[in-house]
């Protein structure tokens, strides 16, 4: 030890914070996190496009990579090692149910339950919806301008989905978050709004439009975007779509040191799963907290530094004054 520095022990952490950012599926572009440049960010306000999902519990990393020995000589001895497979999984539990945590935790497609039109037939993921309302010019991420008669169709407290009409496109659907992959064209004009992650709660309604209580995840609505009321959310077990997100997990130590686990590409592994934890196990109460379980498989990216294929970056920012 010397003046102004000390020998630091292992970081002591209380919780793990989780952040996710949408991968551009069509362009296969994950979100890269630079710990050197951005590692000091305020944990409650991560740098864009990362979205904080708060604390998570049961964070567990599992490396599935396998190595093999290259043998030579008689008797055979290990000459060198080679990496046979590259695989990693990460799992944890979300402590809240939101559109985003449900979407991340499901192993399949996640959709909005659009408010159904009067007399609509029953459907597992929502029947025929109340027709969407067009936006006027001047929309922002928090304000949706519309005609007074259209605004009167909504109420404060409602959740709304904001996105464009479906126009027969195939491939990845939804922007900036791909919520589905269509192999064949559909006829449902509301399909994009069914799968969009661009949802928010209405704070107030006026004759000029809707003021939102939170910014739309997609920012300013796209040209031609329309608005529909959302009753809730639904995901399905089965299907062929896999969610893919960039993931960032942060452990902050008691001395201010930080450990980052950055997975550029995480795909949902397994099906939607919930866990019930006793709220007061010591007392034996009957209340249980239902939390979402999330399990993901890390997919590789090519590191432009040297062309190596990797699945996770682990970074460590030492505490101020700690000897390294």
């Amino acid at each position, binding site marked *: 030890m010397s003046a102004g520095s000390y020998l630091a022990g292992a970081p002591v952490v*209380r919780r793990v914070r989780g952040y996710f950012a949408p991968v551009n599926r069509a362009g296969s572009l994950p979100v890269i996190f630079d710990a050197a440049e951005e590692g000091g960010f305020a944990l409650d306000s991560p740098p864009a496009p990362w979205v904080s999902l708060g604390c998570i519990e049961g964070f567990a990393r599992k490396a599935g990579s396998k190595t093999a020995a290259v043998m030579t000589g008689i008797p055979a001895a290990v000459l060198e090692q080679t990496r046979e497979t590259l695989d990693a999984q990460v799992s944890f539990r979300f402590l809240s149910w939101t559109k985003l945590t449900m979407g991340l935790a499901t192993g399949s497609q996640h959709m909005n339950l659009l408010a159904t039109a009067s007399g609509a037939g029953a459907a597992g993921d929502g029947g025929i919806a109340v027709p969407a309302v067009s936006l006027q010019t001047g929309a922002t991420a928090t304000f949706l301008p519309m005609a007074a008669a259209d605004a009167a169709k909504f109420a404060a407290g409602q959740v709304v989905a904001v996105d464009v009409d479906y126009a027969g496109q195939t491939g990845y659907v939804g922007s900036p978050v791909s919520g589905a992959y269509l192999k064949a064209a559909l006829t449902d004009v509301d399909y994009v709004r069914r799968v969009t992650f661009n949802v928010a709660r209405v704070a107030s309604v006026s004759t000029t439009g809707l003021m939102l209580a939170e910014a739309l995840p997609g920012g300013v609505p796209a040209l031609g975007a329309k608005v529909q009321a959302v009753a809730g959310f639904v995901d399905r077990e089965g299907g062929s779509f896999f969610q893919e997100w960039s993931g960032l997990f942060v452990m902050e130590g008691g001395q201010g040191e930080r450990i980052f686990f950055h997975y550029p590409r995480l795909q949902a592994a397994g099906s939607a799963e919930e866990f019930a934890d006793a709220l*007061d196990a010591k007392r034996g109460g009957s209340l249980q907290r239902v939390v979402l379980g999330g399990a993901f498989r890390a997919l590789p990216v090519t590191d432009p530094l040297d062309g190596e294929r990797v699945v996770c970056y682990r970074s460590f920012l030492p505490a101020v004054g700690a000897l390294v």
Partner: protein
Amino acid sequence: MQNAKDSFYVELRTRLVAINPARTVLLRSAVRPGILVEEAEGPFAQLPNDVFVLRWLGLGVEQNLPSTMVAEECEVLYSTLGTQSYGGLDRGRALSAMDEELVEMLTPFWTPKLDYTATPAVAMLTKIFWDEPVFGQVTATRERMSRSARVVVYSYLE
């Protein structure tokens, strides 16, 4: 946290009036429903009979959630001497009646959270909710029979 405690008390008081309007108490020259919060009254040498007394005990805070959750344990104490007309021989029946009233008062297990520092009280965004009560054993001191029940009340800070 005080909003949760206030809301719990006022809701139980409202329910008690509906369940048994005859259960009243004379306190500071006013006839009130027979339920009170111990910490909000003058000190008692002995808790009044035939009245539900709320005593707040433990406190737990969970900060890892998106909104901080607070758990507060409330002990509900009640005792009875029975009635004079039966010479106190009905004290067991009277205590059973109070047991049933408490179970009814605690059902359903939630109520909206209101801010009672404003007049009229202002509805807040979340609800408070509680677990099932855990009843203690009956204790007898001469002709006085008493019981307490504990319930954990949960709320979110807002």
